[in-house]
């Protein structure tokens, strides 16, 4: 561990004169002089902006339906709050494990980096497992999206959120499987990939932080 885990490499700036024949995408590791951030980070923030719009439309729909409805159930009376609380802790915990993975990769500790990536992936499985129990129970009580507007919004919002969790898990699995290869050859780029995937994962956590009280508690 050299304490300078994030070090540049010549190809980062598209230098073709270093004996490379392939065309490399510039600024994959180091900040562009005009934006101040590397391309991947700007890309993920723009993507997250579009995600805010996607979930924002659903939150807006929920607010409109709830304020317009003659009556609206309290989530805490019909949904499983203890399970959802555990899921909140699982997701918050996974946000910490992914950022610890990134921190240890910056420290040059691949072993711990991979361990925390694996823990993040396991948290994802844990979250989905609990969600599956919740859905199964609801289905067994004949509470489907078609039951009423409450369940329609509950299934759409938690379902879309669950799809985002699955998406993040696929990326974490890919990062884990390719960690040895990429960390050995393009360490900084791999570390940045973990950072931007982490940003996405934190957003998924952030959405749940609002879904939990709105759907389950209020």
């Amino acid at each position, binding site marked *: 561990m050299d*304490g*300078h*885990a*994030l*070090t*540049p490499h*010549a190809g*980062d*700036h598209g230098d073709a004169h270093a004996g490379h024949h392939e065309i490399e995408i510039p600024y994959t590791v*180091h*900040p562009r002089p005009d*934006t101040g*951030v590397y391309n991947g*980070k700007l890309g993920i*923030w723009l993507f997250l*902006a579009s995600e805010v*719009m996607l979930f*924002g439309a659903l*939150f*807006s*729909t929920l607010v*409109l*339906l709830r*304020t*317009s*409805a*003659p009556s*609206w*159930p309290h989530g*805490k*009376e019909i949904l499983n*709050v203890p399970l959802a*609380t555990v899921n*909140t*802790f699982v997701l*918050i915990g996974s*946000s*910490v494990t992914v*950022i*610890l993975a990134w*921190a240890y990769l*910056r*420290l040059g500790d691949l072993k711990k980096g991979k361990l925390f990536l694996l823990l993040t992936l396991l948290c994802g499985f844990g979250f989905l497992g609990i969600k599956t129990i919740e859905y199964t129970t609801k289905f067994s009580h004949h509470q489907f999206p*078609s*039951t*009423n*507007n*409450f369940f329609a919004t509950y299934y759409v919002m938690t379902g879309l959120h669950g799809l985002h969790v699955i998406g993040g898990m696929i990326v974490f699995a890919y990062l884990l499987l390719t960690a040895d290869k990429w960390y050995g050859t393009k*360490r*900084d780029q791999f570390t940045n990939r973990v950072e931007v995937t982490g*940003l996405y994962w*934190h*957003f998924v*956590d*952030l959405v749940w*932080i*609002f879904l*939990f*009280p*709105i759907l389950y508690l209020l």
Partner: protein
Amino acid sequence: MSSNASEHVSHEHPVDHGHDDHGSVHDGHDNSPEAIKKEIRRYLLVLGALGTLTLVTVGISRLHLPSWEAIALGLAVATIKGSLVAAFFMHLISERKLIFGVLAFTVFFFAMLLWGPWHHHYDAEREWPGHDKTNKPAAAAPANQHGSSH
């Protein structure tokens, strides 16, 4: 990676990376081992705060407060939790201006998403007063007996 490469980059891209005395700084992040270990401690503190606030959120829901007070309090706590995640885990506390520019647009359009349907809804209530009487938000009832059933 060699220090030569490091120098090469910093000369080629005169971006202010927020260098300080701690060591290597990359994209706004201080990558010296001391700084990273300090960051890790901070992340664990934030984890503790988020866990505590989650319990507070659950506690608020058990207080049997009036509906709108419970919603306001619950959303306030969720906003604090979300701010902690955004500030520390997503590093907004030390992010570049461009990212804040992207976020400003996002917040504006998100606010429009919320405001648009509400504006239309209350406009409709003014136009058709009867609509107002029948569509008051009401207290909870058993799930399969209310809501706008399909």
